[in-house]
């Protein structure tokens, strides 16, 4: 019945392929597919460009008057002093005060976005996120413990942050351990995460009874997400973990695509489902731990940025991971800018503003419906 088609197993040679292309033989479907690929690339690049543009714009907001042009040249002067000049005061305000906070927000949003994305993929659960799995609650517990009881595993400058970091990791190991147990379904994992969340939140609440005003303020600030804690002085650790974890997560994009089809299918295509799950959970937990220990609880971004990205560009992780990252960065960064300036000099905490700005945006995307309607 199919003598004409039966040759499909032989790979077409380059010559044949380009020949058929020259003859314009690409079908309408193939053209649509090519276009969709471009759309996804431009979506990611477009948001990345928007981030750069917003950086300049947000730097201008604040008590000291700085123009957009001054903002960019102050930044560029740091890297290309021969080509760009900047006034000393402007330079100092931009580089030491305004830019670190923006960069911190961008990195936190980016990191939380991609962590949520990969966690959802390996657990095959749309509710998975650093927050729902209890990792942020663990960090909060670590903060409370250090602040109120004065107990911390590490000393010195890492007295509080180090504790948050270790407790967050502890929580994620608990979840990873559960994931490693045979027969633990992904629903069970998220349920366990939510239980852990309640448990540690309860203990943190309890500790508040014994806290002094000063301690209480620290805990509350941190619990609402606070980008102010990020500065050049403590940025190295965050940067280092980023540089290691993000490429590692990106390198698994094919396996993540395949993991969403279920463990049996993944195994049959050559992906070791259990190992991939452990690797992804460990790597993303490390990233989340270092983000929350500096910036506190920002719950919304990790859960929802991947869904926003999926609604717009579909489920291919080659594009979905970076798209979740840049969307997370966009939401967090713009929310924080609003929070900083809406009622200045009073600063609305980042975590609160992110939810207030992000939820309507998310709802809008959800109402707008399926991916297809965005592009056709």
């Amino acid at each position: 019945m199919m003598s004409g088609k039966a040759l499909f197993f032989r790979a077409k040679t380059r010559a044949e392929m380009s020949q058929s292309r020259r003859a314009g033989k690409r079908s309408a479907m193939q053209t649509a597919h090519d276009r969709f690929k471009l759309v996804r690339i431009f979506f990611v690049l477009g948001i990345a460009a928007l981030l750069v543009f917003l950086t300049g714009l947000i730097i201008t907001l604040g008590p000291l008057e700085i123009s957009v042009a001054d903002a960019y040249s102050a930044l560029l002067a740091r890297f290309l002093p021969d080509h760009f000049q900047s006034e000393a005061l402007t330079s100092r305000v931009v580089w030491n005060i305004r830019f670190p906070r923006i960069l911190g927000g961008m990195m936190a949003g980016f990191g939380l976005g991609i962590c949520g994305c990969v966690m959802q993929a390996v657990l095959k659960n749309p509710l998975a996120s650093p927050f729902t799995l209890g990792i942020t609650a663990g960090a909060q517990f670590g903060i409370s413990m250090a602040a109120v009881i004065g107990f911390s595993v590490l000393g010195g400058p890492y007295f509080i942050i180090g504790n948050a970091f270790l407790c967050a990791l502890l929580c994620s190991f608990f979840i990873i351990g559960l994931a490693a147990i045979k027969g633990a379904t992904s629903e069970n994992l998220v349920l366990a995460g939510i239980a852990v969340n309640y448990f540690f939140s309860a203990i943190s609440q309890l500790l508040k009874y014994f806290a002094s005003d000063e301690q209480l303020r620290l805990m509350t600030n941190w619990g609402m997400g606070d980008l102010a804690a990020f500065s050049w002085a403590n940025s190295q650790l965050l940067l280092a973990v980023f540089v290691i974890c993000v490429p590692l997560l990106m390198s698994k994009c094919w396996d993540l695509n395949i993991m969403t089809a279920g463990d049996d299918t993944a195994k049959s295509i050559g992906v070791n489902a259990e190992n991939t799950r452990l690797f992804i959970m460990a790597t993303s937990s490390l990233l989340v731990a270092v983000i929350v220990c500096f910036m506190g609880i920002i719950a919304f971004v990790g859960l929802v940025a991947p869904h926003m990205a999926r609604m717009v560009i579909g489920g291919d992780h080659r594009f979905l991971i970076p798209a979740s990252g840049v969307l997370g960065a966009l939401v967090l960064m713009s929310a924080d800018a609003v929070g900083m300036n809406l009622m200045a000099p009073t600063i609305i905490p980042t975590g609160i503003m992110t939810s207030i700005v992000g939820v309507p945006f998310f709802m809008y995307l959800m109402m707008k419906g399926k991916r297809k309607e965005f592009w056709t």
Partner: protein
Amino acid sequence: MMIKLQAKEIVFGYDSNPVLDSVSFEIAPSKLVTIVGPNGSGKSTLIKCINKIVSPQGGSILIDRREVAKMTRMEVARYLSYVPQSSVRIFPTNVFDTILMGRRPHIGWLGSERDEEKVWDVLQLLNIERLAMNNFSELSGGQQQKVLIARALVQEAEVMLLDEPTSNLDIWHQLDVMNIIRDVVKKKEITAIMALHDLNLASYYSDRIIMMKRGKIVAVGDPHSVITEENIASVYRVQAAVRKLSDRPMIMPLRQIRGSKA
């Protein structure tokens, strides 16, 4: 390439419930083999043992005289492709990307144009190119089944394992899929092993049939020797009429055999 598949005394059970009890067989290259048997007799489990989705507690599977248990998953995936009985999706994936997954054992980090061309070729072969950009979970059961078969085809493995590949298809598409599989087996000299419920399809297309009952093989051979009234009575507890049609045994089930559990 011609490779031989051997199963030697495979024993497997979920937890402690025995499912496969010392299953042995040998499959010559370039053959279409079907596994038949009642519900729960262990067909799907046997298929999953062959490509190491589950690890047998005893016995071994050999491909090309190499033990599957000692290969990496990626190596196994180059020898064996798999079409699951069903597949659920939680997140949206389009048909093209679903099929492209099958290229994973051959693909670099970014994937190449060549891999994509192969997907288009298979989409054309199965006549589902127009579905390429549709969401997998929004397809009909039969369309989904064709997509899963397409994914196994682009994997270009030498043995295809299929778990009831025609269960959701209408009769036209059943023949379509079976013809495609038979053609691939002939042209590429690969082996297809599939679990089937339709004994007539099995009889019509198979070179060999393996008949199972409660985790044991009760009959192996060409359709004439396996599809007999006696075997169907003892394995399925169904009285059937078996007649020859275009040189293959065709069966017509008549009635259930009640009483003594055969």
